[in-house]
């Protein structure tokens, strides 16, 4: 294979940022945190549609879990209220726990799926939960071969899609 970027560190070092794509929030369900699953046209040549949609759907699932209003969140809320909210000084909230899971998931996705294709996901938390920022990199040393490389990988993955 041509020398594509293999890891996140190599991506940052050897590639130059070409452009950024922003996946906006989907407010059709209210103020809960959900992102649009619409496939951005700039990513057509870089990644398979299915992989991208799966990533966004998984993230949406995580956020829905974090914001779920149910038995455990009521318990947490009542306990916190009873202690005049001092308990938050020592305890991590359910939401924070899920955010850690999300951060780990994004890191894994970047390593396994996005960085090999010259893409990088940014955790929405760093962007005020407004957008999923996807940075598209051009491989500096071999920009011609990276485009041919990605087209070969997309043709390989296209069969699965």
């Amino acid at each position, binding site marked *: 294979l041509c020398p594509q970027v293999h890891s996140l560190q190599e991506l940052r070092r050897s590639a130059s940022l070409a452009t950024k794509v922003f996946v906006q929030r989907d407010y059709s369900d209210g103020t809960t945190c959900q992102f649009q699953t619409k496939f951005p046209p700039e990513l057509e040549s870089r990644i398979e549609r299915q992989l991208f949609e799966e990533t966004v759907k998984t993230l949406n699932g995580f956020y829905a879990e974090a914001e779920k209003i149910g038995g455990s969140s009521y318990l947490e809320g009542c306990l916190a209220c009873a202690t005049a*909210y001092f308990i938050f000084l020592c305890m991590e909230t359910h939401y924070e726990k899920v955010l850690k899971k999300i951060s780990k998931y994004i890191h894994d996705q970047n390593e396994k799926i996005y960085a090999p294709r010259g893409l990088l996901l940014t955790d929405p938390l760093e962007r005020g939960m407004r957008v999923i920022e996807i940075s598209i990199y051009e491989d500096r040393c071999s920009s011609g071969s990276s485009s041919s490389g990605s087209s070969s990988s997309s043709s390989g993955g296209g069969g699965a899609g």
Partner: protein
Amino acid sequence: MTPGGGSGPMKDCEYSQISTHSSSSPMESPHKKKKSVPKRKWEVFPGRNKFFCNGRIMMARQTGVFYLTLVLILVTSGLFFAFDCPYLSEKITPAIPAIGGILFFFVMGTLLRTSFSDPGVLPRATPDEAADLERQIDIANGSSSGGYRPPPRTKEVIINGQTVKLKYCFTCKIFRPPRASHCSLCDNCVERFDHHCPWVGNCVGKRNYRFFYMFILSLSFLTVFIFAFVITHVILRSQQTGFLNALKDSPARYPFTEIYSVVCFFSVWSIVGLSGFHTYLISSNQTTNEDIKGSWSNKRGKENYNPYSYGNIFTNCCAALCGPLSPSLIDRRGFIQPDTPQLAGPSNGITMYGATQSQSNMCDQDQCIQSTKFVLQAAATPLLQSEPSITSEELPLPGKTSISGPCASLTLGQPTPPSSMPNLTSDSGLTDIIPLKEEHEGHQFLTPEEAPSPPGMLPSGSPIAHSHTMHVLSLASQDSLHEDSVRGLVKLSSV
């Protein structure tokens, strides 16, 4: 930079923005200082907030009324515990000071939590994000690029069958999520914005609404409790010695009984009324902002129903009070990453759209505009007296002092009911100077237009609305004047 935050109303970063007016990314100074001390993000926070304890505590700029609240609660409770409790615990039961103590700690805990926490501030858009949005807006509007009269920037979404308009915030350069609003006092967009409360010295929004509600609820119980037992104390004494003697004794032995019972009496009505109002808001899942604007009518059959309500009162209450607590989005204590500067445009090789360069200039202009406004506030009085010639070039004089006017007015403890003052008062102050400060202030004045402007509460509602629309339409014409006015102001400030 002292982490105490009490060194003055302005932070050092605003001065540094003025001094670097040629290139001016606020990250320039941290880059130079990078070798010595890495800066934390709260030190360069663009909103008008004060930070304490190295970024752990976040409040609005005007905190005078908050100290008044603290003093009132502490003094009233202190006098109650010192003078009434010994008598009552003997005569009736020692449970009275115990319950009073619990209520007092709960009140103080929730008050401090409301005042010190992040209400749900939305961080401003990064330059890339802002540029992308601009591009999408241009595409959506079709037509000539920019021009002098772009249509107002709104986006419509359908939430649970109801059409909701999302407005574009010119200060933060984002489309505000539903229920978010821009607080002109703190200069931040806040999620699920309820109102700006000077009594707690902070905005009330998504993240601290439940603390605020528990604060006013527990405070109502505390004031009713204190008031009831003060009356009981006086009655019991008067049974022993006669009513007039009881009153005569009390000032002599318990000097401030009458004063603080009067304070309690007035507090009871206002606080209990406020708690009742917020109980209604919670049960119908509305914010103060929405209720005042009359956004959602109650009748289900009509076009306009509240899309956020869960349908029944119990679920609404539980969701508001016991729902999950979302984390702070502004990461106050994080260190600024030197390799990913937040506002530097071309330096990291981004060459995506032609708009990028102008966007970074726009951001710089924003910073300059913000910082020059602060300079004007500070320099208002001396300039008024000494430099009439300079001001005739760029700005009319009365505009300057009236900027600080609305900010100061809220700290003077207005007679309006506590906490029922959304950022209206400051808006009315700002809108008063719309006709005077047309050039660079038009940019800022869009936000009061977006902020709540109820027809009922402002007596001069309609003329203000007219001047608002006028300025919305002529906004972009002022964009081109921004650079000139900003340069002029920077020259002015360097005098």
